[in-house]
Structures are given as C-alpha cells and as structure tokens.
C-alpha cells in the first residue's frame, strides 16, 4: 500500500525557516533530509499503484532519484525498458528526456509504437553516455515510451571541439 502522509508530514515540518533557509546545525539539516527521504518511499508506492491502474499494467516501477548526476541503474543496464513521463502542468509539453545508458544504440518508440529520433551523447571528461529523445506529454497526463537496445551498434562520438591549453 502506498502512503503520502509521511511525505506530507515531512513537508509540514520543513516549513520551519531553519529548513527553508538552512539556518540550522548540520545534524538538524541532515535529519530534515532523512525525513524527506523516508517520505519518498511510501509515496513512490502510491504513484506506482496509480500508474498501474491508469496504464492498465502492473509494472515494477523504478524512480531514479539521481538522474541529475546521470545515475540510474535500470536504464544503465536494461536492454529494453519503459519510460513513463508524467506532466503536472495544465497544458501539453514537449520535453527532452535524458537518461544514462550503456554504450549502445537504442530505438525509442512513442505510445503509438512510432519510432522517435533519439541520440546517445557521451559526456565529456567521463565515460558515461546519455540517451536523449523528445517526449510529448499531455496536460495533467502521462506518456509511455519504450526503449530498446539495438544489438551490435555503437554510438558515434559527438565531441567536436575541445580547448585544453590555457590561453596566453
């Protein structure tokens, strides 16, 4: 069973100005973070149940909380996976999805099964790759895209220009 109460309560506690502006001792700031993280887990179950009912399939949904540092075990290891994008805005949005992936080429299909343009970009000064594709998501709704690894193909390098030496 999912539950949003723990996250609600954590957010209520974090209305304190110490949480909003960081005017607390370190261990208090750490505890604020702990309460938030503890609230996420049951909320993710709630979201998964809602998505299962709305999409009509019971999936083992995964929430990658570290996409901003290009970490997501599922997309980095799976040969095929689904990407559900939920749009909380009251209008349709086009949004560039970026996901860390292994060094392969991928085929991305939209909810109608049509292939959409995608790219795999190697992040400079690191050996990780990101898959990019543009998703169109309805107002207050979601779209489900499917991603499949194309066997035997390697992504092409895109780094065109590097300045290494310090200018005179």
């Amino acid at each position: 069973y999912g539950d949003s109460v723990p996250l609600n309560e954590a957010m209520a506690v974090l209305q304190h100005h110490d949480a909003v502006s960081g005017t607390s001792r370190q261990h208090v700031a750490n505890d604020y973070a702990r309460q938030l993280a503890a609230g996420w887990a049951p909320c993710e179950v709630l979201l998964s149940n809602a998505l299962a009912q709305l999409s009509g399939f019971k999936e083992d949904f995964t929430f990658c909380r570290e996409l901003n540092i290009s970490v997501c075990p599922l997309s980095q290891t799976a040969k095929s996976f689904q990407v559900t994008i939920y749009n909380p805005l009251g209008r349709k949005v086009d949004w560039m999805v970026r996901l860390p992936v292994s060094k392969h080429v991928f085929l991305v299909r939209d909810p109608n099964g049509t292939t959409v343009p995608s790219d795999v970009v190697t992040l400079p000064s690191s050996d990780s790759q990101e898959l990019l594709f543009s998703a169109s998501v309805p107002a207050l709704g979601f779209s489900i895209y499917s991603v499949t690894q194309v066997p035997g193909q390697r992504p092409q390098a895109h780094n065109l220009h590097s300045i290494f030496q310090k200018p005179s």
Partner: protein
Amino acid sequence: SRVLVIQNEHIRAKFDPDTGLLVEMENLDQNLVLPIHQAFYWYNASMGDNQSSQASGAYIFRPSRQKPLLVSGWAQTHLVKTALVQEVHQNFSAWCSQVVRLYPGQRHLELEWTVGPIPVGDDWGKEVISRFDTALETKGLFYTDSNGREILERRRDYRPTWNLNQTEPVAGNYYPVNSRIYITDGHKQLTVLTDRSQGGSSLSDGSLELMVHRRLLKDDARGVGEPLLEAGSGLWVRGRHLVLLDKAQSAAAGHRLQAEKEVLAPQVVLAWGGGAPYHPE
C-alpha cells in the same frame, strides 16, 4: 571560424575561442543581440572586521570586501553537437563546472552549473556566485520575484519604505530570488530563471548575479552555534539557470510560461515493461 557557437531555431550563443566563456546571446526571432559575459566568482566571507564583529554565517551574508574573486577567467571546453542537443561543457576548476545547453525548439539557454566541494584549505569561507555582465543601461534598477508570482522592483542602495543608510554595499543589495531575476534597459530584457530559491542582486548597471553555494568557517552568533560548514569534504551542488533574452514588452510571456514548466517539470518513472494486466479482463 574559431568562435564556439551553439544555436537552434530561436537562440544563438557565442563563446570566446580563447577563454571558453559565454560572450554573446542572440534571440534570432526578434533580431536581438546582447554581448554578455558570464562567469563564476566567490566572495571572501567576513570573519568580522574593525567596522563590525559580524561574521558571514547561516543567518548573515557579509562578504569581507565588495569585489568578488574570479573562480577562473577561462574554462577548458568541450563542444558537443547532435541533432537533439548542442552543448558547451565548461570546466573552470576542480570544484566549478557548467554545461551550456540548447535543445531544438528551446527559447532559452540552459546553464547547468555544478559547484563544490568548495575548498576552504586557505581558511577563507567562500560564497560562490554566477554573474552575468552586459552593457544594458539599467539605471540602478533590477527585478526579483516573490514566490513566483509578484515581481518587485529593486533599486540599488534604496528602500521604498525608509531612508536607507547603506552600510553593506553588497549584502545590503541582495534580495531573495524564488524563481527569477531580471534586468532591462526598457528595450531588451535579460531574465534568469532559477530551479530553487537563491540570493540575487544587480550590483552595477547591466550586471546580474545569483548565489549558488556557500561554505563558511565561522558562526555568525545568531543562534545556530556552528558555521555553515558541511562535514567532511563538503557538498557539491548541481542546478540550472535558464537565461532568456527578449524585448522588454514581450518578456513576461516568455519567462512566465517557462518558469511554470521549470517548477512543474515532468516526472520520469522507469519500468522493465511486460507487466501483467492490471484488470483481469
């Protein structure tokens, strides 16, 4: 040509070929060109001085001098261009880097900054800012939002409700920025959207700055009882600034719609696929 350029249908951004820094932004739809110099600086945090014992800390921002120091005047750069993205990766130092990004159809420049762990081995607390310098004649005025709704006009060294005797020329001109800050000369407007609340100001005409990270060494004696100094090597933080260049009279439509997309950004959920049907039939 050696000039580094990234562009899409609406925006073009130019970078100095020697320093790798952003030097110009162009709105192709409205034929607006704005020379703009963006770089990272840091204020040396005050530990108290002969004017006041007040140190910079969790409650108080008080730099020890008005002029911040450059993190670096040049960046190691990588240019990446594909059909779906054009980006310049800038590496300023071991603890400061940024990716300047353009996707097709995008009407703003995305600056994804990564700052930290802030080194304090020199026993100096540091308050890191991203600063945009232009030639816009802004006459001491700038604009910051209040919780993403009301835009408030700010005037340097001035308060509308009392005669200000400005004793802190930097901190006394810093204001809360919840979602956006902008400057304008009445014709062109430069707006920067934030993905979180930050301190911001315009300390000279045509200039706009936002504080992205701080690491301090002394408690500010306001009740916390410890300096704003994360344990261990310190936190590194990543965020985004979205930069919009528009005509002043049409800028609001641009930043209001984009700020909504920023605050209510889509959420991504992954699954292996092939799950059982939810409804038996």
